[in-house]
């Protein structure tokens, strides 16, 4: 999937329904501040990139949104209302970075478990397996998978889930250039089919290719929110790429 494809839809707030609002989320680990008053919105059907260097707070933010880390303050609003922690999983699914779960299980069984738990039709699962090329490793143990196949399995699990919002932490890590482009195409397909994605990405080139809008994070603070065009306007750098914009704002 290329940038031109990504920009075919108009994802600006004027034309997109707000799906989720993140308002004033803060998080401290002891003396260290991980997130400071983070606020932004997620629009239905868009691919939103959380952009920032390592240690910017992307993972903590995603985990706080998913309810896997207790935030010290702030609110998560879904269509204007605040769901209780146990109900957030009805709306969103978070795929953490670097997971290799149930290593002694066979790939097929992990996938079947996710399919059965969510009551998903076999067609969805088969499509996820096909899209991510997992057929050759279905009879392998998760622990025996290569890094690339391990990440494909995690992505497949995310695709099988039915929640309207997908949060993914570094979904392109561990893939080479060709594989990254394939995975980006899959991600764009997911968005085209109506799901909303929030991707934490530290590779700005990848983010620019796949995301509709961006939230720029540094030191746990939001430094900019908007489409690339809006961020360019904010910095006054009319022809700059995301890298230049990011450097200018952080």
């Amino acid at each position, binding site marked *: 999937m290329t940038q031109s494809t990504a920009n075919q839809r108009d994802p600006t707030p004027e034309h997109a329904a707000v799906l989720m609002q993140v308002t004033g989320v803060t998080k401290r680990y002891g003396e260290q501040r991980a997130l400071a008053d983070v606020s932004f919105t997620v629009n239905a059907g868009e691919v939103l990139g959380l952009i920032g260097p390592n240690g910017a707070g992307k993972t903590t933010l995603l985990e706080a949104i998913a309810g896997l880390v207790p935030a010290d303050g702030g609110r998560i609003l*879904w269509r204007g209302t605040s769901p209780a922690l146990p109900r957030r*999983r*009805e709306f969103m699914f978070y795929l*953490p970075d670097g997971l290799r779960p*149930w290593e002694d299980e066979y790939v097929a069984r992990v996938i079947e478990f996710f399919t059965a*738990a969510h009551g998903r039709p076999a067609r969805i699962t088969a499509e996820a*397996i096909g899209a991510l090329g997992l*057929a050759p490793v279905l009879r392998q143990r998760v622990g025996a998978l290569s890094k690339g196949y391990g990440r494909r399995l995690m992505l497949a699990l995310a695709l099988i889930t*039915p929640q309207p919002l997908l949060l993914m932490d570094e979904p392109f890590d561990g893939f080479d250039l060709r594989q990254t482009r394939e995975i980006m195409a899959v991600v764009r397909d997911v968005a085209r089919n109506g799901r909303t994605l929030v991707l934490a990405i530290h590779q700005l080139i990848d983010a620019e290719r796949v995301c509709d809008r961006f939230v720029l994070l540094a030191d746990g603070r939001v430094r900019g929110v908007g489409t690339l065009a809006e961020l360019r306007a904010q910095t006054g750098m009319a022809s700059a790429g995301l890298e230049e914009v990011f450097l200018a704002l952080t």
Partner: protein
Amino acid sequence: MRSPEAAVIRRAPFHPLLAKELREIVSGRALWTMLLILCPLVGYSFWQAVVLYGEASSAARDSPALASGLSPLDGVLVPTFGALYVAVTLLFPFVAIRTLGREKETGALRLLVQLPYRVPTLIAAKMAAIFGAWLAALIPAASAVVIWAVLGGHVHVPETANLIFGHLLYGLLVGAIALFAASISESSATAAIVALAFTIGSWVLDFALAGQPGALEWFSRLSLTQTLRTFEQGLLSIGLLLGIVAAICGLAALSAVWLHPGVPLRTRFMRSIACVAAVAAVFALASQVRTSVDLTEDRRNSFPAADQRALAELREPLLVTVRLAPEDPRYVDLRRNVLAKLERALPHVGIRLATTGQSVVGSTADEAYGEIEYSYEGREDKSRSTSPREILPLLYALAGKPIPPPSAGGEYPGYPLVANGRWTLPWFLVGLPLLIVIAWWRSRRPPQIAAQLIKVGGQP
């Protein structure tokens, strides 16, 4: 609030979760290692028990009085299941921890808590898997019972089932402790240390403090081992059962409280306090429940049937004042032969140790030391005997009732058996371990892939 865009995830089926939990236990080495260690442990205990029982039976062959003292429950079953107890205490925590420990270490827990299951459902599935693992651990001991029957040994089903039930409760209790340890620990190693601190610590508590006077004796009752004693004696105590079930449920609830990583620490502590308070309330209630059922064939926990019926008619409270130190062997005899049975037979019995703090009123030099005073309907009598043959007539006299005539028949005959148990050792040392290895090998076979999964996915 329910958005139309929310996924419909309220009614997730339980069986895929349970199957996953069972596979998680089966795919680990802890279960298989425990089973392989259990085989010789149980086998040797069983063989030793059969040999010793045979020696005692040889002496009792021509003496009905001696034969009546030979009970397979005490002679064979309890020692054999003792090996299961050792394994469950020392090894079962490692098996139970696996249901959660690996998921915490690998981060799989973060996926699991997002699945459409409530946290109590996740814990219930893990407890069910722990129960499954315990059933597997029962196989060597259960095979010993079958072999005993094949050898011609007598098996009284109620008392045997009661013994197995006691071990089941003990296993679930240890499993719940291990699960809780895993829920509060970041790694399996830490969880194992926490769980073993509970189990071995309580073992030491039992060894070191049992029979000690005063508060030390009370502490020794907190030992997990105590939960098994009553079942080994052939009693099904409703109060104890209630207490153990409360402890298991309480630990499972605490595991649920500490499972979800997204719950703030303060909330976890508040919920934990509520759990502990609820369990403590059930404990208090359970301690008031005196009902118990004597499931032994020899009715060792009860007076003869005629006396049981007569004593049940004594509706007024009976107060027994004992002037003996708790560690005095006479008190131990009195407790086992008379007091425990009286508590089961009479509706209202009060037993008071004439103690102040940890010492008996007066001292062992006191002339009154050793006296047991019985008070019923304002009448009192004293005795120094610890035998029901002397005490029961005394009680009937106090109550103004005639001594009931003994019932004919129903005497426990005893079940002496001289058997050659040597041939059982190959089963426990070779046959059963071989079957376990074969089961392990079969459990590792790759699954069949449903054709519909790769029809669209395509072959490589």
